[in-house]
């Protein structure tokens, strides 16, 4: 397997219609809004959940932090879950031996730990000095994720719509009327996620290029395939991955080089066709750094209109004109 040995920056745009991309558990599950600016927020935790679920359910990959809906028999806790990865029998000669064995298998098996890192609490039985008695030692394995995402944010101010409807059931036994349900939706939000893949941290978790292919697949198809009531309108629009050949280097803040323009006021935007994405700064900044860039990988669903200084352009063509090699990703 090819190990990741270059740095990358990722920008991912997706939108949602009549949905709730990320509810706030402490605010009646309303969409998260930055009150100061009216911008819709989606946590990195939500986004990584989308990717994890896709990799587990659709790609058959083992993940560490997973939610199993049904399970017979005894119930494990996380320490037992960690023991699933113990390849040698307890009691162990030393705690370190067990920790090393678990760590190796954990990184071999769990793609989410290789991508996003994780903390695994350990509780292992270790032989005492006289070889017959055992004692329990505790500790943990910690990995910093090579792949980090910022909190995602909408590229425009959003509008929250409050819905009321009738539920299917009564609120309690014996009641004769059905209960009401209430929820808050966003009529529209175009969300911008930014991430970095760090080649140095990748060595610690044995992250491979194959894992990155799966990550991108999870970002794109996981977003699209997340069929729950509140997320069903999600559509991936653009994925841009800039790969660097210069070591330890990245430009940073690529997400801020995209800006949204529209004839409508922000809160009235309801469709991707009503906006244009201005990328003059992106093209210029990437062009200035072309010697440090290996290539730019692009996946687009073709529905975004890009502009350069107000003039409609083709993203891939203008990147090439700026001296950046491009590669089209098919999802």
């Amino acid at each position, binding site marked *: 397997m090819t190990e990741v040995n270059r740095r990358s920056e990722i920008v991912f745009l997706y939108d949602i219609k009549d949905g709730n991309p990320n509810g706030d*558990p402490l605010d009646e599950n309303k969409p998260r809004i930055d009150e100061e600016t009216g911008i819709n927020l989606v946590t990195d935790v939500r986004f990584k959940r989308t990717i994890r679920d896709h990799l587990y359910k659709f790609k058959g990959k083992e993940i*560490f932090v997973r939610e199993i809906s049904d399970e017979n028999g005894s119930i494990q*806790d996380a320490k037992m879950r960690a023991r699933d990865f113990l390849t040698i029998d307890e009691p162990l000669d030393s705690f370190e031996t067990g920790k090393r064995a678990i760590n190796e298998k954990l990184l071999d098996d769990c793609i989410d730990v290789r991508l996003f890192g994780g903390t695994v609490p350990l509780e292992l039985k270790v032989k005492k000095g006289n070889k017959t008695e055992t004692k329990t030692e505790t500790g943990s394995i910690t990995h910093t994720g090579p792949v980090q995402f910022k*909190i995602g944010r909408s590229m425009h101010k959003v509008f929250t719509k409050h819905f009321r409807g009738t539920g299917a059931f009564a609120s309690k036994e014996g009641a004769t009327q059905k209960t009401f349900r209430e929820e808050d939706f966003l009529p529209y939000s175009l969300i911008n996620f930014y991430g970095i893949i760090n080649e140095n941290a990748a060595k610690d978790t044995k992250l491979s290029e194959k894992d990155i292919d799966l990550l991108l697949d999870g970002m794109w198809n996981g977003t699209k395939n997340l069929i729950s009531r509140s997320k069903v309108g999600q559509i991936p629009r653009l994925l841009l991955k800039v790969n660097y050949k210069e070591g*330890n280097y990245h430009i940073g803040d690529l997400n801020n080089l995209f800006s949204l323009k529209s004839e409508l006021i922000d809160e009235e935007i309801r469709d991707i066709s009503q906006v244009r994405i201005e990328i003059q700064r992106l093209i210029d900044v990437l062009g200035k750094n072309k010697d440090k860039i290996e290539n730019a990988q692009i996946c687009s669903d073709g529905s975004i209109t890009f502009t350069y200084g107000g003039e409609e352009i083709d993203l891939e063509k203008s990147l090439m004109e700026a001296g950046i090699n491009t590669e089209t990703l098919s999802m």
Partner: protein
Amino acid sequence: MKVLVFDVWGEFGHFRKHYTTTSPLTYSIPPRTAIAGMIGAIEGFGKDEYLQYFSKEKANITVKISSPIKKTRIAENLIDTKIAPLMSRIKTRTQIRFEVLKDVKYRVYISHSSEEVYNKLYSMLKEHKSVYTLCLGLSEHIANYEFIGEMEAVSELSDSEREIHSVIPEKELIKISFEEGKEYFSETIPIEMLPNREVIEYGKVLFERNAKCILASVNSLWRLENGEGIIFM
């Protein structure tokens, strides 16, 4: 004395106050220990070792607030990973409001007694490189930075009022001259930590919330060639 100066910024930041657990509050500025972590990330020192390079004896570090301090709250579901059954039938979710800093920007100043550490940092900053991903307290709060330059700092006798641009450690303060339209705050932050993460020194620092300078007389002050007055933490 030569000082390296760089600006660091991000959309959000969270520097957890040591005494908060279930409702994590954030300091208004990155503590000295967190700045050491950022410099460690740029130079590529591992999590377990970076602190040993940035003790007070070896490194002079301080920070200026470049963008007004704003705080908001972001709620998240956390899992008690120690007892989460199967990491799956997760019943042990706790909903936590993280207090976070918003639209964060600071200027960092550092000088170092080791030429090797200093020169490595200088060359990394100059080329806008970093070994590990820079963040503002938590990994999701990814940061970016810009090198401002290497500057000569001259020690300034300051028996009278001077303009001070960095935060002011309270123990260096003689007298402050309060001005209209400025908001003064002080916080107790960790100053020095051992590699095993035992904090061995806390210190009180004074700052102006809106990124304005403070007029004060202090014990020791360094003046940079761009006119900024700084005091190391």
